[in-house]
């Protein structure tokens, strides 16, 4: 799901603006745009100082505020064309958006109250099933424990720390070749580990090796065992009648 980090308590630029308007105790229909813009930008700077990323929406709003501010500064010429067209306050559209948002914000407070109230009433046997609001993906990989995740991470990291092997020759790796090679490596062994087969291999070689073992599974020559998800793949050769086949 990712972590949701809310900036201070603000849900977005509208939320921040409404709060600034409330703090300044000004009429929403007559916002002192210069003051509010200044405070709005101050808030953004304070976020920047805390090294928090400012989302695009906040920046767009900053631009809108500055545009409105500049339009208010320009002398308003009486518009001659189309006579009746009234000079619209550049703030109007923003105010309408703010009011609309404010309405829903108030409704969400109402809903929260209702939610709290309603959750005090218990229906018969229902709580466990349909009242469970926990999303199912809280457990991402089945029964994987934190410990197992830690071990996997450790394994990965040790892999990454190793010096990557230097490959001087990049030749084509044919599936046939790789098949033969895997067969050779499996000969006389009760089992092999996939990670051994691809030790020091390039990404391309790993892919081809993987295709090779899939092919061998298809041919019925081997069985693959993976005990836990993302864990080691064990390769077990099956009865040897296959050698005759190919």
């Amino acid at each position: 799901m990712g972590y949701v980090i809310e900036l201070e308590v603000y849900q977005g630029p509208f939320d921040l603006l409404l709060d600034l308007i409330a703090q300044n105790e000004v009429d929403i229909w007559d916002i002192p745009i210069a003051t509010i813009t200044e405070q709005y930008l101050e808030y953004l700077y304070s976020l920047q100082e805390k090294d928090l990323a400012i989302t695009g929406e906040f920046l767009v709003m900053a631009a809108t505020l500055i545009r409105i501010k500049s339009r208010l500064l320009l002398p308003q010429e009486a518009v001659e064309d189309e006579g009746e067209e009234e000079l619209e306050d550049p703030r109007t559209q923003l105010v309408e958006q703010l009011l609309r948002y404010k309405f829903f914000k108030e409704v969400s407070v109402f809903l929260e109250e209702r939610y709290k109230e309603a959750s005090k009433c218990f229906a018969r046997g229902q709580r466990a099933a349909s009242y469970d609001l926990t999303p199912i993906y809280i457990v991402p990989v089945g029964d994987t424990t934190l410990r197992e995740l830690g071990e996997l991470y450790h394994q990965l990291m040790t892999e990454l720390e190793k010096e990557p092997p230097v490959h001087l020759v990049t030749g084509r790796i044919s599936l046939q070749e790789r098949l033969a090679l895997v067969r050779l490596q499996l000969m006389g062994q009760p089992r092999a580990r996939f990670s051994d087969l691809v030790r020091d291999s390039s990404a391309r070689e790993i892919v081809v090796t993987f295709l090779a073992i899939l092919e061998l599974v298809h041919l019925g020559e081997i069985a693959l065992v993976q005990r836990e998800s993302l864990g080691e793949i064990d390769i077990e050769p099956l009865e040897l009648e296959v050698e005759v086949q190919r």
Partner: protein
Amino acid sequence: MKLSDARVVIEGLIFASERPLTAQELAEVVELDPSTVESVVEKIREHYAQGALLIRNVGGGYQIVTKPELSTWIEKLGRQVVSAPLTAASTETLAIIAYQEPVTRAEIEQIRGVRSDSAINSLLDTELICEVGRKAGPGRPILYGVTEKFYIHFGLTSANELPLAGISEWK
């Protein structure tokens, strides 16, 4: 069915049902008309006044639940009151969907002024909203609406119970 029997039968039906039953549904079972069912339910309610239970009207249906004042006791039983993590973003988004349904993600985001996909996704996961169709027009965006579960969780009878104050200011 005699009216005197109806009271017991209807109470039993509401109790046995896994989800809220509407007056219409009850009426079909007991073969009375919905308005009679409604008045019978009122009778059961009066009858319940002294007891532990009440009949709640959620999403247009009746549901028998324990009275709110018992919640502290029931919690002791280990059945926790789930004040599930509904974030402010989720609740805001939910409010918009409840009023504006059917509504697209873009319309929600326009009102909130911020991206809302994660809020929408978590509401979908908790089944408080669902996809109700697609809007005609470019891209055929998905339309969202609230679910029956929404009404149950918020103890609301219908959308009419949502507050209207202030709505004229922007509508």
